[in-house]
């Protein structure tokens, strides 16, 4: 049973297999390491930036998430609808945070 199931899945994936060149993986890795380095630098000089350092760290982390999802998790090669779904999740997350923060600020 499991065997036929795997075949079933493979059929579905067939059209979507892409040979991604190693160089792309390497470039992505370098980009992520670079962003990590910036995060570290910002945290070291964090005192000078005060609250801004939190936002910078969050911003860099968000960029990293996008890079990972796009290249390592193959969003780049999927149908557009999947990028749309991921975007929707992001919007939901922001909406929940904003609504909670608004309540706190208006208390």
């Amino acid at each position, binding site marked *: 049973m499991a065997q*036929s199931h795997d075949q079933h*899945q493979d059929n*579905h994936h067939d059209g979507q297999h892409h040979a991604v060149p190693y160089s792309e993986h390497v470039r992505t890795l370098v980009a992520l390491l670079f962003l990590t380095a910036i995060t570290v630098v910002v945290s070291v000089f964090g005192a000078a930036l005060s609250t801004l350092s939190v936002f910078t760290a969050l911003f860099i982390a968000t960029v990293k998430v996008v890079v990972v999802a796009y290249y390592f998790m193959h969003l780049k090669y999927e149908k557009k609808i999947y990028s749309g779904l991921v975007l929707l999740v992001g919007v939901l997350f922001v909406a929940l945070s904003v*609504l909670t923060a608004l*309540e706190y600020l*208006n208390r």
Partner: protein
Amino acid sequence: MATATAQVNYLEAKKGIMSWLFSVDHKRIGLMYLYALITFFLVGVTLGLLMRYELLNPGKDLVEAKTYNQIFTLHGVIMIFLFIIPSIPAVFGNFFLPIMLGTDDVSFPRLNLLSWWVYIIGAIMALSTLVFGDGPADTGWTFYAPYSVKTGTNVTMSVLAAFVLGFSSILTGLNFIVTIHRLRAPGMSFTKMPLFAWALYATSWIQLLATPIIGITLLMIVAERTLGVGLFDPSIGGDPILYQHLFWIYSHPAVYIMALPAFGVISELLPTFSHRTIFGYKAIAYSSLAIAFVGYFIWGHHMFTSGMSGTARFIFSMLTFLVAIPTAIKVFNWVATLYKGSIDVQTPLLYALAFIFQFMIGGFTGLILGALATDIHLHDTYFVVGHFHYVMFGGTGFAFFGALHYWYPKIWGRMYNKLVANIAFVIFFIGFNTLYFPMFISGLMGMPRRYYDYLPEFHIPNIISTVGSWILALGLILMIVNLIVGRFRGRKVTERDPWGGITLEWQTPTPPPVQNFDRLPELPKNGPYDYEHKPQIKD
């Protein structure tokens, strides 16, 4: 596909307990969930009956105040996390989603088995609080801080259990989303999918996205209890309202994890037993998504009296009223489906009708609680207890038992005694309403929830309620005994389509073979409920 092994039905394909415990067949996993769920449900019911017995008379009858607090907490935790959240998706979703989509399993069968095991581990953790440590938590199933940070009872274990159970829920949701996107039969576009699949799709997104929030929140409680991190307790710099936000950001959408699959079941039962196309297919399908979406933004209505900002209260109240719209759309479409149908009154249909009736009461009382002014009076009274039992038990619980009676012959290849099933239904229905309706009255009179004692003026509704709990228990016992007897001695069912249903599970042999189909499933021409072009399947 039509090989010799494909013909062996899934019940007989392999023998022995291990062939069940480690099966990756979605049908067997569905049944393992069923047996576990019913067991925990009965534990929860026993605790419920104990509480009702304590409340028969004012004053102490049976248990101490603290024990009572532990009982309602454990009752709530079991009923929410072990029964009603997994219920329909884990049992009937697992069993029937792949078949209804015309495929042979979910996308990730091993992950599916893992989710069952994680569920069992979480359940053992939750129940272990009965015997280890200082007894089950006494905080209520909501674990509100700062009390949950301070009480000496076993909150840490209960909370960790809920955390682990969350993973099971996430894995099931993930599996269903991928299955629905990737494994639909050729020709089955999204708008040709059965409505049960649509409902599970909307539910799965909530399971996937909302559950992590409660996971992290519960870990924050553990951090505060064990490490003294000041997150929620104001005496060490925390914010208790923040806890309530985080808790309800999950737990309100979780209400739709409970309700949406039930809507899906009802949308299957009604066309089958009125033998006609569902009215407003797209309206029902899209309203599930709308409910899932709007459901994310109304959590604040649990917190109107918490001291949160006035503006937020106003906004949350307004948004709460919005969610009634897609829900009402469904109800109107269901009722319209019955209109001029050739109605065949069978047990599952009775459960579906009771669902509509009771869910409406639950929904309308929800609007009363969603209005700011009335909620000030009714918050934390028995009105709320009546409201959520009507929604969860009168709604989803009844849909669950309706689904069980509906798919029973397909699952086991036997039929229960229909007369006994109908009698059990009537007793169950009367018991349910006798048990919970008086709670609206005592609530309006001002009786607070979560106390083992009450003032003498609330005596009469409490007597009625407790008698109702006995009637309900009688109906439940009769129903379960009838189903168990039917499983072994009921009439054998070999026809594929005993109810005259149209979705793909009625094209497979009864019980289904391991591979689900012995021939390519045929889709009706104009959508899943096109009774005019129903494919003629011969045995």
